[in-house]
């Protein structure tokens, strides 16, 4: 079968199981777009290539499949960069295909030429510049393999125009991928390390399991639950670990880190053993490293050897697939009942609940974003897919929407990319058409990728957008309030009328400024079959406008700033 490079692209995407791609055409990729309709693959036309990369990322995180983004050369390709870096930091499997100027022009500063493989070298798991059409099929096959095998990540394929146009006999690549270097990564034998880990676990009194993104990536949720129950250890989760262990489980300890739950941070600081599973001790998780978990021995299990002993030197490093490691550990550890430890922990829980803003039953309490998220959680029975942008609302979404299932909380953790929320939600809705998808976004971040509202309408996606309208770049403002003498330098936003804006795009919208309006808007938005936006006008500053607890920069986890108690929200 003689095919052009362009046809090989779609033929191979089809063979890799791709049903949808996100992109924008342009001069250097038009040739690839031309035969698209012959292949039955859905193309979602985004309004900015950053949106294509985030949508592919959201699609990947919601579906567990590889997301695909397509862009033209030069500015199209560079617009992908933020999305690629976001996917890299959160180990999200996406494949980006970019057009490139013709091979003969590469290196001449041709129109819309940019060295995208050079630019993305440090932010892709791997990338390719295809110079021979005969390599194309196997490169695409390899790219999909790499994106989702081992530690997942973004892969970019740069396709010169002449390669797209060239014709060749299409030879389907063999199923098996020959990558001698990549194959080597899984090789070490963890048996000894697992035995030593079991010894530490059996001899400890106050363990805490730290469950990261690796739990859901390794599909180790069940193994984790069995393991935690057997050793009777509380489980704290990272931001991306949410849903890897059910929030409703009695052993659930909450989220750890800078805006983690107080009981989780306190338990970590008091623990005599940390069992870190598929997480990487990010600085947002540890606070001051030198005073992190000072009494604890540490076991670290990760698929990526380079993560072991990177920031924290551990007592036992287990380089292994997490599910495998947990299943191997299970028969080696004693069944335990750690009543005393649980009593201590539950006291901390009680204290946390007492100061929690949503437990302040105040008749005329002003609307805060925690209340909004709690109301959405109750209305949706905790079963929605929540996709967030970055800022205060993101932390509140993590704190107040409780996740019992994996792949239900989609957020930019490692890079903290504002503008991620809306396009990622769009991708998630396409991946899970029957799920209820809520995008929780800020008034700052929404406007970084707001043009994707048009994509939402064009694709008729019924996503619900909960806009945290606090008139500020809230997370930065909070730091200014707490650490910069309330000098709100360059953080106040003069906003558009978001209801009118949404309506201009053809999206139903409501405004809610108090609890009743919020409840009714949530009901109406959920009942509406199409896309909907609710502009929640929430408390802007002070106690109800700040995220608590907070571990200030340079502080240790136990030095977190707690919400003042008792509190009357919205005063000041």
């Amino acid at each position: 079968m003689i095919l052009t490079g362009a046809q090989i692209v779609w033929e191979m995407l089809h063979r890799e199981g791709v049903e949808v791609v996100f992109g924008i055409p342009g001069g250097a990729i038009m040739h690839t777009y031309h035969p698209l309709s012959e292949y039955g693959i859905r193309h979602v036309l985004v309004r900015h290539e950053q949106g294509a990369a985030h949508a592919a990322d959201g699609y990947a995180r919601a579906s567990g499949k590889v997301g695909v983004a397509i862009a033209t050369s030069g500015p199209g390709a560079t617009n992908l960069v933020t999305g690629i870096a976001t996917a890299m930091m959160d180990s999200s499997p996406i494949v980006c295909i970019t057009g490139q100027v013709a091979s003969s022009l590469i290196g001449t500063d041709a129109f819309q030429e940019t060295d995208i493989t050079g630019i993305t070298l440090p932010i892709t798991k791997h990338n390719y510049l295809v110079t021979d059409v005969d390599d194309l099929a196997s490169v695409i096959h390899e790219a999909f393999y790499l994106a989702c095998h081992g530690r997942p990540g973004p892969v970019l394929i740069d396709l010169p125009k002449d390669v797209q146009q060239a014709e060749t006999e299409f030879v389907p690549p063999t199923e098996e991928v020959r990558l001698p270097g990549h194959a080597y990564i899984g090789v070490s034998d963890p048996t000894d390390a697992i035995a030593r880990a079991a010894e530490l676990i059996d001899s400890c009194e106050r363990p805490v399991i730290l469950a990261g993104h690796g739990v859901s990536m390794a599909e180790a949720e069940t193994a984790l639950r069995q393991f935690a129950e057997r050793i009777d250890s509380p489980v704290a989760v990272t931001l991306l670990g949410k849903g890897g262990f059910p929030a409703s489980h009695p052993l659930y300890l909450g989220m750890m880190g800078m805006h983690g739950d107080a009981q989780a941070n306190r338990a970590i600081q008091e623990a005599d053993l940390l069992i870190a599973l598929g997480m990487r001790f990010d600085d947002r998780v540890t606070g001051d490293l030198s005073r992190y978990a000072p009494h604890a021995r540490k076991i670290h299990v990760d698929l990526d050897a380079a993560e072991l002993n990177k920031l924290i030197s551990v007592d036992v490093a287990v380089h292994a697939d997490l599910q495998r490691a947990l299943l191997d550990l299970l028969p080696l550890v004693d069944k335990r009942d750690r009543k005393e430890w649980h009593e201590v922990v539950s006291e901390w829980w009680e204290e946390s609940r007492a100061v929690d803003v949503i437990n302040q039953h105040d008749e005329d309490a002003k609307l805060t974003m925690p209340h909004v998220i709690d109301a959405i959680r109750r209305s949706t029975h905790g079963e929605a897919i929540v996709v967030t942008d970055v800022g205060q609302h993101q932390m509140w979404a993590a704190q107040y929407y409780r996740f019992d299932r994996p792949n239900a909380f989609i957020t930019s953790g490692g890079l903290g990319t504002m503008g991620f929320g809306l396009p990622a939600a769009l991708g998630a809705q396409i991946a899970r058409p029957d799920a209820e998808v809520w995008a929780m976004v800020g008034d700052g971040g929404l406007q970084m990728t707001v043009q994707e509202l048009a994509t939402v309408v064009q694709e008729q996606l019924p996503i619900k957008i909960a806009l945290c309208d606090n008139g500020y770049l809230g997370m930065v403002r909070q730091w200014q309030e707490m650490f910069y003498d309330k000098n709100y330098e360059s953080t106040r936003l003069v906003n558009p009328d978001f209801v009118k804006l949404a309506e201009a795009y053809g999206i139903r919208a409501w405004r809610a400024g108090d609890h009743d309006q919020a409840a009714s808007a949530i009901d109406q938005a959920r009942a509406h079959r199409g896309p909907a936006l609710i502009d929640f006008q929430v408390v802007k500053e002070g106690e109800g406008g700040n995220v608590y607890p907070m571990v200030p920069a340079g502080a240790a986890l136990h030095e977190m700033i707690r919400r003042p108690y008792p509190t009357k929200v919205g005063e000041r």
Partner: protein
Amino acid sequence: MKRTLIARVEDRPGVLNRVASLFRRRAFNIESLTVGHTEEPDVSRMTIVVDSTQSGAEKVAQNLQKLVNVIRVEDISDMPAVTRDVALIKVETPDNRTRAELMQIVDTFRARVVDVGVETLIVEATGTEEKVDGLVDVLRPFGIVEMVRTGRVAMVRGKNVNKGESK
């Protein structure tokens, strides 16, 4: 402390760039890096010397190993190995007396004179870096006009294990 890593890599365009980019990005310091062909077609071999602790070198190795085109990395610092550095050193020889003196020194170091010019000669020295350093120190007073060194290449003694076939 200097650590020596050996990396077998796929012989493709851009691989050196990927390795160099990794060192820059992770702020690892390279002392020297040499690349060349190996006994296998399509496989090149890098000898990388880093100024680092053992655990630092391990981090370098683990990160290198993550590069798709890197087949196998090994820290050979603690293994019995042959290491060599090659230097070409151009020295001033204003008169016959200094020339004779130089020839003697070169002999003592088991180096070779590979070119004799009107007022200069080129010495080729092969050996461990320490030996080459020693020669350079002795030649310096004569006036070194130009020098080039390859940096360390290394090979483990006995049946080499750095092959990279994963089981």
